[in-house]
Each structure stands twice: as C-alpha cells, then as structure tokens.
C-alpha cells in the first residue's frame, strides 16, 4: 500500500506506540476496577457502588468532574472545529472562563446537602425525596434513560472511531480485521466495516467490564487517570507545536515573525480551500485496476499553466481498460488556494506524496458560503469564521451568546454532573475542587486553541477529515522532533476523554434502573445480595445494548451528543434550581417545568424537520440555539406552575430549608 499523505505515513510510524499505549492503558483501568471492587466490601453496596459513599476527596472529585464533562468532543470535535474555523473558536469556548465555578458552585453545596438530608443516591432519588413524589422520580428516570441511551450509543461510536484511527496502521489489527470480515459475512446486520466492529468490541467490552466490576469508584479513579493523561497530552503538544512553527518560520524569508505571531500573521492571509467534485482521469487506459486512496494529493495545471493542488476526500478507482472514474460516483476533493499551503505540501516530498499523472474532469466547485472568496482574507483570525454552508459565518453573534449559555448554564444542569456534586466529602473539598478544575480547564482549552491554530499551517488540507486532526497532529509533532514513542501518550488523550464519559453514563443508566425503578418502586425490601446481582446484570445488559446499538451507528454523532446534552439541561436545570433554592417550589410546578422544558427543546428540533429538512438541524428561534428556548420555557413554566398550585407541605419546607433543633444544641 502506498502512503499518500504525511499524516498517514506518520500515523503508521507511531501506531505501535498507540497499540502499546492502549494495552497498557486498558490494563491500568482493569487494575483500578479490581481495587475499587475491594472497596465495596464492608460498606452499603448501593451507596458505595453508585455514589462512592459520599466520600470523594479533592483530586478524585475535581478530576472525575472535569473528565466526565470533557467528553470525546473536547479532543476530536473541538480540535476539528479550531482547524476548520480558526481563532473564533476562542470565543466559541469563551464561557469556559466561568464554567468550573458555574457548574460546580451554583448547585454543588446545596445539592450535596439536600441529598444527605434525604439520603438520596441518584438524581431521580433527590427529586423524588425532596418532594416526596414517586411520580416525579419516575419522570426523571424516564428522561434520563431516554437521553442517556442515545448519548451512550453515540459515545460508543466515538470511542470505536478513535480507536480505529489509532490502530489504523497496526499490522496485527488489519489481519484481525480481515479474519473478522470473513466471519461477519453471513451476519449482514453487523455491517461491512470489520475494523470498526473490532474496535467497538474492544472498547465496549473493556468499558463494560471495568464499570460493572468496580462501580462508581472505578469510574472515578479511571477518570482521574484519564484526566491526567488529557492535561499532560495537551501540555506536551503546545511547546512541540510552537517548535515546529519556529522551524517553519525560519524557512520563510518573507516574514521575521516566529511562534504564535507567525501563526496569526500567516492565518490572516489564508483563504479556505474550495470544496470540489470531479472525476479522475489518466492519460491512457489503465492496464490494471488503479485505486486512488482517500487523502491522495493531486497536482494539475490549469489552462493558463498555473499549478493547482487537490486532495481527495474519498477512495476512487479507475477500472482496468478505463481512463476515468465512474460518472455516477464523483470524487470529493478540496483545492488548496493559499500559496503557503501549496508550498508546504510541495516542498516536503518526504512527508507528502503528490500524484501528477491524473487529470480532473467535470470539475464542480462550491466555494465556502462565508469566507470562500479571495477578497475574504482573514476569516481565520476574525469572527464569525469561515463556513462552507452558512452565509452568516460559523459563529454569528446570536450563536456566540447561545454558547455562553450552553457551556456554563446548561452545563450546570447535567444529571451526570449532579451525581458527582452529591458525592464530595465536605465544603472544603468543593472549594479546592472548583479551584482545581478552573486551573485544569485553563491548561486544556486555551492551549488547544493555540495548538490547532498551529496545525492549520503545519498540516494543510485536512478539512475533509478534520475529526482526525488530533491523532494526526500528535503523531506529526512527535515524529517531527524525533520522539515517535510519545505519540502513544498523546493519542491516548481523546480515547481517555471518551472512556471517562461512557463509563459515567453507563453507571447513571444502571443506577436509574436498579435504584430508582426496581429498589424504590418494585421491591424496596430487596436484599443487598439481590440488589448487587441485579446491578451487575443491568450494567452489563445496558452496556451491551448500547454497544449493539452502535454496531450500525447513527450518522449524526456530534448532533446526537449536542441534542441529548442540551435536552437534559432543558429538563433538569430549572426544577433543580427551584427545588434547591425556593421554599415555595412544589412537585406540580417542578414537574410542569421539566415537561415543558423537554417539549420546548424537542419542538425546536422537530420544527427543524420542516424548516431545515432534518431533525438534527433544529429550528433556531431568532437565531438562538434550542437550549435557550428550552431553558427559558422551563424556568418560566416551573415558576408559574409553582405559583398556581398549592403551597408545598410545611413539613417539607422545614426539613429542607430550616435549621434542625439538634444542630442548635450541638
């Protein structure tokens, strides 16, 4: 197989490191699970398994909170967006300046206290006990399971895709995939991508086993390890990226800038590549079938004699005896239009192989709707950033506001965060953990923006597979400074991010079924042994079902993650805020708010089917994200619902808002 691009060549070089890292990593995770299982002994099983007996210290609490929040999106989708849209991503992620203090501080102390007063172990438990309403608890369970199951399937797919990228050039992996392919043939429902399936099985089985065996403590301590891997990965990448940029700047006689100044100056001159569709043609009929792989660089000459450089976005084949690829399957390409990008590719033949014997016929070019014309230079260093499909750019003002809500406020409404807020030991732990997460996010998110702005200059032409920019950049940087072995650690970061999210969600669904449905509604007197057996069984069943759901995964991965995350916030934030801070709140109002939040958020997506042609292209009321509509409706409905329904029992108000006499005596 001929390597056609720099990232594939380098990925191959670093792949063994990736495989070894993955194996070591998995071993470490199993070790933590075994240790956690030992901790279950001698304690209340359900409290220890689902909540760690409310005993999390600073590091465990801070890193599990941070790692669970930073899903695969932080290390795949976010770098991809920085690469595609430039510096405006600093504003897109800008709310992270206050995310730690908002998501942990707004509700943390109070939800922990209320959960202790009521003895609650899960989020539906808190709602149920706070209002003494089993119906409310069940409603919360249904919504959590609905959203989390979809999210879990999407996260399983993300984990498998990342693993597939990491192992893409490991020989033994390909052999296993070939064997698997023959085994899969009679089972058409398993699909045709045997590499993906192997990765899904490896990823899924590992997560299911360690989560089932170790419970909450396993999830927390693997999160800690994963959180450390993430921050170390980013902190190593930043100086490496700047070193590589300095090398590039030193070769550029037209500029005396270096480091990030060079990056910004050069980015200000860039124009996005031009998305193109064409057929590929050779000069004479091919003697044998000729495969042109995804990522092949193709150089042609225009009628005026100027050089043009394209990169393929999918596989193509010229059949023996033919001169062109099939008419009914045009090849997707991009054309680089910046002199500096073209120079970077052409002047590095050791890294980039350029094919020169192919012509492009039936060329159809669709420039970016925003930022696509040469007079639009500078869209990578200004807002709203280039966009291939929106004529108002990537981040118009209304969306910038929406994302400030999305990250900070809706982040505070995630049940997966609430569970962690119920698990810390005391207020001192909370204070130190907020500070720790603030520093942690500062060290991760802003450096990521800098690193992947550098990647725009170092690795041009990745637009069509920008989701792979993180592992590709990790390998590129480490090979560039002669430390290929380091690639394994760096590429483990996105994998760790997905794993830490999946295990948390898996445990949440399992706790919803065992604790909130079975123990609290069907069999309150079930023995601990029975609960234990059921917990293990349910965790395995839920994990396996989600894994099977990801065998033929949904197409809109990132969209599902956004829909479920914002939907959970639209349902849970307002009732949670009111139940914690407003003594007049009652079950009628909070249940109304939860349902109205769900309905308003869902209706924006449903309207998208009619206005934008897809459920995952939601209708944007005055250009705002559906989360704004969902939160607004939910808060308003909860408030009005509480006011027009009877006041809550005084006994409940006293229990959750007034000082106990015993406390006075002590």
């Amino acid at each position, binding site marked *: 197989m001929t390597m056609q691009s720099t990232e594939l060549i380098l990925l191959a070089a670093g792949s063994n490191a990736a495989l070894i890292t993955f194996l070591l990593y998995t071993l470490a995770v199993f070790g933590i699970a075994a240790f956690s299982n030992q901790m279950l002994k001698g304690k209340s099983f359900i409290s220890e398994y689902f909540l760690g007996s409310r005993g999390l210290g600073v590091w465990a609490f801070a890193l599990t909170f941070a790692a669970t929040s930073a899903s695969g999106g932080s290390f795949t989708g976010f770098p991809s967006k920085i690469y595609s849209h430039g510096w405006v991503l600093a504003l897109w992620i800008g709310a992270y300046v206050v995310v730690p203090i908002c998501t942990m501080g707004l509700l943390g102390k109070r939800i922990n206290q209320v959960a202790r007063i009521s003895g609650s172990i899960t989020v539906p438990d808190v709602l149920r006990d706070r209002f003494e309403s089993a119906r409310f608890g069940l409603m919360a369970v249904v919504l959590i399971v609905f959203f989390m199951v979809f999210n879990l399937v999407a996260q399983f797919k993300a984990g498998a895709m990342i693993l597939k990228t990491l192992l893409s050039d490991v020989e033994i992996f390909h052999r296993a995939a070939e064997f698997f392919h023959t085994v899969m043939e009679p089972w058409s429902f398993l699909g045709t991508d045997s590499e993906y399936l192997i990765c899904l099985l490896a990823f899924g089985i590992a997560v299911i086993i360690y989560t089932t065996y170790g419970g909450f403590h396993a999830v927390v301590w693997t999160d800690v390890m994963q959180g450390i891997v993430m921050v170390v990965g980013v902190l190593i990448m930043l100086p490496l990226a700047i070193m590589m940029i300095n090398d590039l700047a030193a070769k550029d006689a037209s500029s005396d800038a270096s480091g990030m100044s060079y990056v910004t100056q050069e980015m200000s001159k860039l124009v996005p590549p031009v998305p193109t569709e064409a057929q590929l043609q050779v000069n004479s009929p091919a003697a044998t079938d000729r495969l042109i792989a995804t990522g092949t660089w193709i150089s042609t000459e225009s009628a005026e004699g100027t050089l043009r450089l394209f990169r393929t976005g999918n596989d193509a084949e010229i059949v023996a005896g033919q001169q062109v690829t099939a008419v009914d399957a045009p090849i997707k390409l991009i054309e680089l239009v910046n002199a500096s990008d073209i120079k970077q590719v052409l002047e590095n033949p050791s890294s980039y192989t350029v094919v020169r014997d192919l012509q492009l016929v039936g060329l159809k070019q669709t420039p970016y709707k925003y930022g696509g014309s040469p007079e639009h230079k500078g869209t990578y260093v200004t807002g709203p950033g280039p966009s291939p499909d929106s004529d108002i750019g990537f981040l118009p*003002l209304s969306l910038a506001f929406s994302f400030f809500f999305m990250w900070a406020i809706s982040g505070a409404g995630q049940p997966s965060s609430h569970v962690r807020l119920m698990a810390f030991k005391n207020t001192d732990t909370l204070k130190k953990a907020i500070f720790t997460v603030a520093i942690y996010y*500062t060290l991760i998110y802003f450096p990521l923006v800098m690193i992947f702005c550098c990647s725009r200059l170092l690795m041009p032409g990745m637009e069509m597979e920008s989701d792979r920019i993180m592992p590709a950049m990790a390998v590129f940087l480490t090979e560039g400074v002669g430390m290929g072995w380091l690639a394994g650690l760096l590429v483990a970061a996105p994998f760790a991010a997905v794993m830490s999210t999946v295990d948390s969600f898996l445990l949440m669904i399992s706790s919803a079924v065992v604790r909130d449905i079975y123990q609290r509604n069907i069999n309150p007197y079930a023995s601990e042994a029975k609960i234990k057996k059921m917990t293990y069984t349910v965790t395995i069943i839920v994990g396996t079902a989600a894994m099977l759901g990801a065998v033929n995964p949904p197409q809109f991965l990132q969209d599902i993650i956004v829909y479920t995350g914002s939907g959970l916030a639209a349902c849970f934030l307002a009732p949670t805020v009111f139940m914690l801070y407003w003594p007049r709140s009652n079950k009628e109002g909070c249940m109304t708010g939860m349902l109205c939040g769900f309905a308003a958020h869902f209706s924006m997506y449903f309207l998208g089917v009619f206005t934008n042609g897809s459920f995952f292209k939601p209708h944007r009321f005055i250009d705002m994200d559906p989360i704004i509509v969902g939160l607004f409706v939910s808060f308003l409905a909860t408030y009005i619902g509480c006011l027009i329904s009877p006041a809550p029992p005084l006994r409940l108000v006293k229990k959750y808002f*007034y000082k106990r006499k015993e406390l006075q005596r002590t």
Partner: protein
Amino acid sequence: MHIDSMDSPSENDGMELYTDQLDPTFVNSRREAVIIFCAWLVALCWCVPFCYLNGYDVADPENISITLGMPSWVVWGIAMPWIAADVFTVWFCFFYMKNDDLGVSPEELAAIAAEGN
C-alpha cells in the same frame, strides 16, 4: 408498586425537629449562587460584546492587531478574562465561600452507629 405511597404523608410529621431559623447552609449557598450567576453575567457581558466589536467585520484583517502572538481581540476578549476569572475563583473559593456543614446522610449515620457498636 409503591408509586403513591409517598404522596400522602402526614402534614406535620417531624415539625417539632426544626427551629424557625433558616438553615445557614441554604442561606449561604443561595447567596453564593447569586454571586456566581453575577460572575457569569459579567463574563458574558464582557467577552461576547468585546469580541464582537473588536474581532468581527475587521476592516483590514491582514494587518490585524496582534498581542502575545494572538489576535488582540482574543487576548483582551478571552485570554485576559480567563485569567481574571481564575483570580476571581481563587478569591471566591478561599476567601468568600463559607465552610458550611453539609449534614450526615442516613447511611453515614448507620456506619457511625456500627463503628460505635
């Protein structure tokens, strides 16, 4: 099923256990939540308008103002507020937030009782 069994407890059960004073943890948490919400509002009102006014529709982007190697609007609109927010977090966590008692959960009480025995 025990769905309805919790919806009809006696109105005055356990009332005698409580004083007429609001729980200090609740009062402090609410005050702290208001401060945090204000911090979010300040961040929103600074970051988004500042970036919009200085980083959107720039007349000559090829000669964009650069500070510390980044577009100046990113530095003053995001990076500096980020540092300011971290300083605020330090102040809030270590000098403002109260060390409130979070109480003892039933299972913790049971564990204490078991140790006592």
